[in-house]
């Protein structure tokens, strides 16, 4: 007879010394791993719950301004530097790693309306209610010198927004019209205008660097071409847009923060329909900034919260709020896509994590592997009702929550009335207009 018994040599299965790692032989046969789907489901449920447990996004509050923070600007070369302009004309430069203010200057009398850095990071420009544009050095004044701007340009009208070109020594301001300035000259090289109302903000496209977008008080968004020095096209919305931000990864996509509590993402080539309408805020949206990945953006609103939206979804994935944070005026996403800074009415700049439950610092490879596994599990099971309920749950302040309920009732009533109108009138007389097209009035070329 031929016989062989299964006989394992323990030396192959037990480690030799205490300093070795344990031996773990693997067999991926599915019969050895029963209940795959229920066990993965329970792991996904645990991962979702843990994400909510570790969701502590607030990092720090930068204190020091003596009036509300009106505008923020990022340093293009240094992740730890941020500039802020306040409503009493003060400009402060902060170091985010030490969470301290490293430099202060009284830049203007009145509001600091806009602040922007030069692409090389050596200087920055500020505009104020005293109709001046000032250029400052980024390095502080050396010993014995006083805080003086490099250049001061006096204008005739109040400027409301400024943005610097991403590659050339050119910047644009807006007020009554959009002016393009050369840094060496004291008068604009060209002025562009379309319409008769004041323009509230202007932004250069980071990829197609000759394009500019601006928002005006007569509810339109105008796109300009710097090379031809003409406006290109404009889109008229229902209500006024406060700011516009270009997507740093897609050359032709920009998002507009509107007064009707929504944000609209447009594709420049087809302005008649927005790519997406983002609805979640309960009050006017004041500022928007894109993440450097181009996949998400953050918006600051007059209801005292900031929300993070994915570009392709109409609902926010995250909302940050604090009892102490009042109306948020400006928001910025840092260039390493990890942090969000927001400046609000009550003189504080707050630093938040972009992913609320992310662990900061260096992770070991096992930690990273475990986090990647949990992330994949959450994505795989995100449609299951119990998991969706937990992942979606956010605590909201009572004001925002009651506003949401009220607005929901109002929307429901409007929808019901429209359905009834459509039901009881001649078919085709009450047209179905998609939500995206509802807010656009016209596109003009």
């Amino acid at each position, binding site marked *: 007879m031929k016989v062989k018994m299964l006989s394992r040599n323990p030396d192959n299965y037990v480690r030799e010394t205490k300093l070795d790692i344990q031996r773990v032989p693997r067999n991926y046969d599915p019969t050895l791993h029963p209940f795959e789907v229920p066990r993965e489901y*329970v792991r996904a449920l645990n991962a979702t719950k843990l994400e909510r447990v570790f969701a502590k996004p607030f990092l720090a509050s930068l204190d020091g301004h003596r009036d509300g923070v009106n505008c923020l600007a990022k340093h293009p070369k240094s992740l730890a530097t941020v500039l802020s302009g306040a409503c009493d004309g003060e400009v402060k430069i902060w170091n985010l790693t030490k969470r301290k203010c490293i430099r202060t200057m009284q830049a203007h009398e009145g509001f600091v309306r806009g602040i922007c850095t030069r692409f090389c990071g050596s200087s920055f420009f500020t505009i104020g209610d005293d109709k001046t544009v000032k250029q400052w050095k980024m390095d502080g004044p050396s010993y014995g010198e006083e805080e003086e701007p490099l250049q001061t340009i006096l204008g005739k009208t109040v400027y409301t927004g400024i943005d610097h070109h991403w590659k050339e020594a050119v910047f644009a301001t807006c007020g009554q019209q959009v002016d393009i300035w050369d840094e060496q000259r004291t008068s604009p090289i060209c002025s562009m205008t379309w319409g008769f109302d004041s323009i509230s903000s202007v932004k250069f496209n980071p990829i197609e660097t000759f394009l500019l977008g601006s928002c005006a008080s007569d509810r339109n968004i105008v796109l300009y071409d710097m090379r031809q020095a003409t406006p290109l096209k404009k889109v008229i919305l229902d209500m006024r847009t406060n700011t516009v931000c270009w997507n740093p990864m897609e050359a032709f996509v920009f998002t507009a923060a509107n007064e009707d509590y929504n944000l609209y993402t447009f594709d420049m080539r087809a302005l008649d329909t927005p790519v997406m309408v983002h609805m979640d805020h309960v009050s006017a949206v004041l500022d928007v900034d894109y993440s450097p990945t181009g996949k998400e953006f953050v918006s600051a609103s007059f209801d005292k919260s900031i929300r993070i939206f994915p570009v392709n979804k109409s609902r926010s994935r995250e909302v940050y709020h604090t009892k102490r944070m009042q109306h948020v005026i400006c928001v910025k996403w840092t260039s390493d896509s990890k942090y969000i800074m927001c400046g609000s009415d009550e003189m504080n700049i707050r630093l938040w994590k972009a992913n609320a439950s992310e662990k900061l610092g260096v992770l070991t490879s096992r930690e990273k592997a475990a986090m990647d596994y949990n992330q994949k599990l959450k994505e795989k099971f995100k449609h299951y009702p119990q998991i969706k309920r937990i992942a979606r749950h956010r605590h909201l302040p009572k004001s925002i929550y009651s506003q949401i309920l009220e607005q929901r009732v109002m929307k429901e009533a409007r929808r019901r009335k429209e359905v009834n109108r459509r039901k009881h009138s001649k078919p085709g007389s009450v047209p179905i207009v998609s939500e995206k097209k509802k807010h656009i009035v016209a596109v003009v070329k």
Partner: protein
Amino acid sequence: METAPKPGGDAPPKKNKLRAKRKKPRERRNPEPQRTLSGAQDPFPGPAPAPVEAARKFRRIDKSKKLLHSKSKARSRLEAAEAEEEEASLRAARSELLLAEEPGFLEGEDGEDTAKIRQTDIVEAVDIASAAKHFDLNLRQFGPYRLNYSRTGRHLALGGRRGHVAALDWVTKKLMCEINVMEAVRDIRFLHSEALLAVAQNRWLHIYDNQGIELHCIRRCDRITQLEFLPFHFLLATASETGFLTYLDVSVGKIVTALNARAGRLDVMTQNPYNAIIHLGHSNGTVSLWSPAMKEPLAKILCHRGGVRAMAVDSTGTYMATSGLDHQLKIFDLRGTFQPLSSRTLPQGAGHLAFSQRGLLAAGMGDVVNIWSGQGKGSPPSLEKPYLTHRLSGHVHGLQFCPFEDVLGVGHNGGITSMLVPGAAEPNFDGLENNPYRSRKQRQEWEVKALLEKVPAELICLDPRALAEVDVITLEQEKKERIERLGYDPEAKAPFHPKPKQKGRSSTASLVKRKRKVMDEEHRDKVRQSLKQKQQQKEDGKKPKPTGTRSSALDRFMH
């Protein structure tokens, strides 16, 4: 040029045309032959050969099922997932090269009947370590013994009818505890690890530590005859003389449900390790399948003409072996038709049945144990000729194959016998599931992880992959609600508007012709559908009338 958005008719709005084009998956270029300093080249270039047959067992997607109401996005994602699964299954099949151990075997020479080979012959022919796995514990004083191996196969718990309870590491023969509980012991089970024992004593259920310390006495579970532990749900199922099947969650210590089986005394119980369903055998020849989520049995299978005396389910949950008072031993197909696949008449009814990890079936009839084997892991055992037989010194009272060793443990009147059965066990275990060589630290880590991923009892059902199915009912419900809310169906096909063309192809006559073409095509489709439905109805109506009903004159008043 001013363009305001056109007000369409009752048409649902069109999607945005400017969407980013989908990128094709990047094809991997063939790697150039590696050039080494010595100039040597790999004699077997490219990846290791992947056996396509072995890859089949790693595939989980059932390609025969079609998704209804699927949109193109979902369909394309499904196709991508299927392609990924193909690749992953090939890689998993290739990784089987790394499995170190081979299963055991026993072959007779020149037509020798393996059933005639005795245990002593096998012990002589095999190496020392394996020979040491065969032992006999002569314990005549404390009555017939029942035994249970722990999940890793390292530890053995034995309970004698007259109260002897012991737990030991049977490989090193190191005794963990030995006590007499001063009461009749009807069944004994390890809980999730070798640290805890559940003993069904005469009156109540007791839980002991592996040092012999009594931890709990659960008085709600009284007069229990059988115990089964569901390891992934941390549930202890108990069948009692009063006819109740009680599920006890041992991680939180709560009774999940107590189901009244309404079939009198419950004597025969086994679990299906594939889906954690409890099988109960009754005296009217039926086997009922129970889940803690339902008050009624999930299914009832008529197996024997007399009472059912023993049942066993194999580790993949495909086959159930049952034996009854009619001296039959039958194998049923559980995943599909619930029909008997094969049957055999035994001279004496089998009172105990057990399946091994590789599909061997052991039956204890009186003081004889017969083992049948099949082709391999997936096939049912063929009941023609037994693979091995053994006569014990007393009547069999407990039977279990040791999980990762080629050993069958038998509890009988005279104590415990450990038989050698070459080829019974799965040779390659997974270190993260059950590792017989785990250290204390590894056991603690494993226990924490197992508790964290404990499956809730409500998820036990006949198909363990039911959670992965699309919830079609909820989907249809939501669709209906959405149509009601919006007043129109957002996913309905928009009515055809012919695109305006250049060079005179857009005259009224040609537009009308184009519209007519599309309308006729749709009409033809509709007619085809209705014809198909009518044919189906005809076929359903043509089904044969139930036999046994004789046509009578009163039939004309029936329809």
